[in-house]
């Protein structure tokens, strides 16, 4: 089961309305993505916590229908 990049982006922005989200379809197969998420709410958080918030936004799809999402998270510079 593949996911559309727009769906991934929408789920992340639903949880983090201020987030700037960029999604790249790495293999063109709708299954291997790289996402960069920049949100003020990440400030002061560990990377693990930041990624956990993004995974939570994806509501269980990560590791399931979404096999590979390379994540890069940060607070705005």
């Amino acid at each position, binding site marked *: 089961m593949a996911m559309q990049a727009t769906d991934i982006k929408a789920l992340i922005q639903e949880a983090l309305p201020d987030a700037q989200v960029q999604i790249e379809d790495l293999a063109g197969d709708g299954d291997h993505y790289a996402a960069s998420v920049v949100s003020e709410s990440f400030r002061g958080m560990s*990377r*693990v916590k930041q*990624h*956990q918030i993004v*995974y939570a936004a994806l509501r*269980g799809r*990560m*590791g*399931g229908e979404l096999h*590979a999402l*390379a*994540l*890069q998270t940060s607070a705005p510079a």
Partner: protein
Amino acid sequence: MADINARIQSDIDTNPVMLYMKGNAMFPQCGFSARVVQILTHAGVPFKTANVLEDAELREGVKTFSNWPTIPQLYVKGEFVGGCDIITEMFQTGELQKLFTEAGVEAKAQA
């Protein structure tokens, strides 16, 4: 579930650098697991691996344990450090090496 949590806790308490992965260090069976093995090897620290593909209970258990949906997962001194992306980023910035030093994990002399 309680048993698997106890097993993971004992693994990460006993092994200063513990990697849950797909396959083993010699034959990783997933590109993300392979990358973390490569980084640890390059960093020169001794590490122990567990193959989640051989153990369905462990595969699900470790995800619940860390509240982290994917494999690989790296633990240093009993603390969850991250998956492939975080380890790669920390390695590139030098944070991973610093973490190992601070955790008292000795890098082996590189050949």
